[in-house]
């Protein structure tokens, strides 16, 4: 099954507002989603990023479901 991921900053510039990655089943951990994204977008392997779920910062061990809003956040630089 596919999961939509929202992108920002340089990731958005490179791939667009959203990408879909293939995942085996839900629920799934953030760590597994990131692994799936990196597998299908190997050119970003050197870019660190954080993850937000439903508009809050999340950690790698958090689980997400099919309808959760997932965003990948490259290094921030406000101010």
């Amino acid at each position, binding site marked *: 099954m596919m999961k939509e991921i*929202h992108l*920002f*900053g*340089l990731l*958005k*510039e490179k791939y667009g507002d959203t990408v879909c990655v293939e995942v085996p089943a839900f629920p799934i951990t953030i760590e597994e989603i990131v692994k799936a994204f990196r597998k299908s977008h190997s050119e970003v392997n050197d870019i*660190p*990023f*954080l993850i*937000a779920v439903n*508009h*809050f*910062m999340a950690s790698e061990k958090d689980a997400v479901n099919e309808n959760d809003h997932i*965003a990948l*956040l*490259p*290094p*921030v*630089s*406000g*101010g």
Partner: protein
Amino acid sequence: MKTDFQLIDDAKGFPDLEQFRSSTSGAEVVFNGIVRTPNKGLDVLYLEFEAYEALFHNEMKRIAESLNSQYQIHSVVLHHRIGHVLPGELVVVAAVYSAHRKDAFQACEMLMNELKSTAPIWKKEFNSDGSFWVSQTP
């Protein structure tokens, strides 16, 4: 504690700080962030900012709660530009109000440090040599 956090499209959106002043707040500390040129020896033509608005508001709320737990503050204000910003223009206005200056100075510094390290805002610099995404964290 009163808070006001906004992402704004142009300089007209910066806050009128008069509304946050009160007789109980003896200190108002304001930080104005301005686009600087040159940067690392290159002339900056402009910066482009983008943000994740829903997460920005949640993160700013978390930062404000953290400030409030460490300092005696009355109000926290932060307005940040998004879009195209030229050298010499304001990018961010941050203000903290408290009874005494020490809390206001320290809380305003922490507010800006937290903004720069965790708020979901991204900046691309366009300079005389090309362009690049500015990276601070993670």
